[in-house]
C-alpha cells in the first residue's frame, strides 16, 4: 500500500483535483451548449497521435506524447465537422463513426509499434486507455497542474460573456461579439483538458469527466454560475477521490475509479436534489396524482360499494401505474373517505361523500 501522505502522493492528488475542477468548468460550458460528447471524439481520436508521437520520437516524455494526442484529437474533430457539414451525416452518427475508427486505428498502430520498436511495451501506451495515476511522473503532474490552471485563467474572466454566447449566440453576434472565435476557444480548451486528462483518466473514460459533473450539478441549481462551480467541485472531488482509491488499491486503474465516484455523485444528485431530483418530483406530482385518482374512486363509491380487487381493476383502465393505483386506494381509508365492511367492500363515509361533492364542483365533474 502506498504511503498516502507522502509529498508525491499529495502532489498527484492536487494535480488530479485541479484537472477535475477545470474539466468540470469547461465541461459545463459544453454541456450547456448541448455538445458535451464532442469530448469523446477528441479523446478517442487522440490515441493514434500518442502512438505516432512515440513511434517517431521513441520518447516517453509526456508533453511530446500529449502534443501528438492534441494534433490527432483536433484532426478527429475536424473530420467530425466535415462529416456533419459537408456530408450531412447526423451529429451523433458522425461522432460514433469517427471515434471508433480513430480508436481502432490507434489500437492497431499501438500493437504494431510494440512489435517493431524494442522495449516499447514498457512505454506504457496501454496506460492511456484506462488511465494510471500511479504511472505518472512528478514532472508530468506539474504539467497537468500547470495546464489546468492555464485553462482556468483563460475561461474564468470571460464567464459572463460566455453565458450569453452559449445561451443566445445570435444575440451575442448582434452586439458585434465574435461568437465563432469563442466557439473555437471553447473547443480548444476542451481539447486541451481532455488531452491532459488522458494519462490519468484514460481515453475510454475521460469524456465522462467533462460530461457527468455538469449533468450532476444541474440537478442542484438553476443558476449558471453555480452550475459551473458545482460542476467544477464535483469534477474535483471525483478526480481526487478516484485517484486516491486507485493509489491505495494498486491494481485498480485510475479512470474507472474516478468515473465510479462521479457516477455515484450523479446518481445521488438525480435522486436527492431538492427541486429537480426524482424523489422531490415524485413527492410533488405524486401527491396530486393520488389526490386526483382518489376522487375518481370516490365517484364510483358514490354509486356502489366495491371490493378492493374490483376498485383496482376499474382504476387500472384509467391509470396505468399500479403503484399509484394501490396508493390511491389506500389513500381512501387513510384520509377517512371510506371504510371497509366485513366482506371487504369499501363504503363511502359522510366525510368522503362531502369531500367528493365539494371537489366535483371544483373539477367540473368527474364521470
Amino acid at each position: 500500500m502506498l504511503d498516502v501522505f507522502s509529498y508525491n502522493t499529495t502532489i498527484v492528488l492536487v494535480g488530479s483535483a485541479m484537472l477535475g475542477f477545470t474539466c468540470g468548468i469547461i465541461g459545463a460550458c459544453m454541456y450547456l451548449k448541448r455538445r458535451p460528447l464532442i469530448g469523446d471524439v477528441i479523446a478517442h481520436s487522440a490515441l493514434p497521435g500518442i502512438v505516432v508521437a512515440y513511434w517517431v520520437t521513441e520518447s516517453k516524455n509526456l508533453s511530446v506524447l500529449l502534443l501528438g494526442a492534441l494534433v490527432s484529437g483536433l484532426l478527429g474533430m475536424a473530420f467530425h465537422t466535415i462529416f456533419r457539414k459537408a456530408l450531412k451525416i447526423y451529429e451523433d452518427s458522425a461522432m460514433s463513426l469517427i471515434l471508433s475508427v480513430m480508436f481502432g486505428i490507434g489500437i492497431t498502430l499501438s500493437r504494431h509499434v510494440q512489435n517493431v520498436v524494442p522495449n516499447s511495451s514498457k512505454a506504457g501506451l496501454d496506460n492511456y486507455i484506462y488511465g494510471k495515476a500511479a504511472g505518472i511522473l512528478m514532472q508530468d503532474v506539474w504539467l497537468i497542474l500547470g495546464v489546468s490552471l492555464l485553462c482556468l485563467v483563460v475561461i474564468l474572466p470571460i464567464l459572463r460573456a460566455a453565458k450569453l454566447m452559449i445561451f443566445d449566440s445570435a444575440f451575442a453576434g448582434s452586439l458585434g461579439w465574435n461568437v465563432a472565435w469563442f466557439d473555437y476557444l471553447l473547443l480548444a480548451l476542451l481539447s486541451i483538458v481532455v488531452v491532459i486528462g488522458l494519462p490519468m483518466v484514460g481515453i475510454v473514460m475521460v469524456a465522462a469527466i467533462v460530461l457527468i459533473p455538469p449533468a450532476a450539478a444541474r440537478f442542484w441549481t438553476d443558476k449558471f454560475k453555480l452550475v459551473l462551480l458545482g460542476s467544477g467541485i464535483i469534477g474535483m472531488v471525483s478526480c481526487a477521490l478516484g485517484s486516491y482509491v486507485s493509489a491505495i488499491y494498486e491494481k485498480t486503474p485510475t479512470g474507472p475509479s474516478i468515473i465510479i465516484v462521479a457516477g455515484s455523485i450523479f446518481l445521488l444528485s438525480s435522486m436527492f436534489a431538492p427541486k429537480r431530483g426524482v424523489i422531490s418530483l415524485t413527492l410533488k406530482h405524486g401527491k396530486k396524482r393520488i389526490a386526483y385518482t382518489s376522487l375518481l374512486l370516490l365517484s364510483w363509491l358514490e354509486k356502489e360499494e366495491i371490493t378492493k380487487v374490483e376498485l383496482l381493476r376499474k382504476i387500472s383502465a384509467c391509470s396505468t401505474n399500479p403503484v399509484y393505483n394501490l396508493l390511491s386506494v389506500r389513500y381512501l381509508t387513510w384520509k377517512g373517505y371510506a371504510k371497509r365492511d366485513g366482506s371487504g367492500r369499501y363504503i363511502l363515509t359522510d366525510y368522503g361523500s362531502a369531500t367528493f361533492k365539494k371537489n366535483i364542483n371544483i373539477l367540473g365533474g368527474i364521470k
Partner: protein
Amino acid sequence: MDASQKALTVNNLSVIYDDKIVLRNVSMEVKKGSLLAIVGPNGAGKSTLIKAVLGIISSVLGSFEVFGKPIASMRKSIAYMPQRENIDWDFPVNVLDVVLMGTYGKLGWFQRPGEAERKLALDAISKVGLSGFHNRQISELSGGQQQRTFLARALAQDAELYFMDEPFAGVDVATENTIMETLQKLKDSGKTVVAVHHNLDTVQKYFDEVVILNEELIASGKVENVLNKENLIQAYGKSIGKNLNKDKSVFGTDLNPDGAIG
C-alpha cells in the same frame, strides 16, 4: 431623404449560403422614427436580411449604414430581439439574468452589471408587464412570457434602432397587445423599429412602413401604398391572389378597386 433622417440604409445587399443566393441585390432605406415590417413568404430571406445587417451572418455582399455611419461604430444604438425558437429554454438563468444581457453590449466582456444596469433591466421587465417575474426561471415561462422577456432585453439595450425577428410569432392576445403598445411607445419617443412579420392581416394595424421581400426586394414604402395585390402576388405567387379575390377581407380590411388596401 435627408441623410440625418435615415435610420438604416442598405445598398445592394446580397447574401450567399453555400451554393444558394438567399438575398439578391436588396437596397432599401428606413426613415428615422418609423415602424417597418419586413414581409414575404417562408424562405424569402426576411430574418437573413436582419442578421446580415447586424453582422451575425458574414457571407454578405453590399454595404449598409446606421444613422449614416458604419454599423461597427453604432452597435450601442442598436437593439436586437431574435426568434425564441432557437433558444434552450431550460438554460440555467432567470428572467432578470436574460434581461440584464441587454446591458452587456455597453458593458463589454469584463465589466459587471451594476446597480444602474439592474435598475434599467427591472424597469424594462415592468414595461413588458412581467413585474414580479424577475426571479422566475425561464423554463417556467409560457411562450408569451418568453417573448416578453426577449422584448424586455431589447428595451434594456436602450437603443435608437430596434431589430425584431417575428416578435408576434406564437404569442397570446395579451402579449400581442403588450408588444404592440411597446412598439407604439418606441415610435412615440422617436425610436425606429424594423421587424420581420409573418401575418399580413396585421401589418397595417401595427406598422406604418413595409418591405415586401422574396429573395429580391419586391416593394417598399408606406403600407397603404405598397401592400397591394400586385406586389403580394409577385412575392407570394398566384395562390394568394385567388384568396384575395374570394375573400376581400383577408387582410382584415377591404381591398379597394385597384387592389390597394385602404
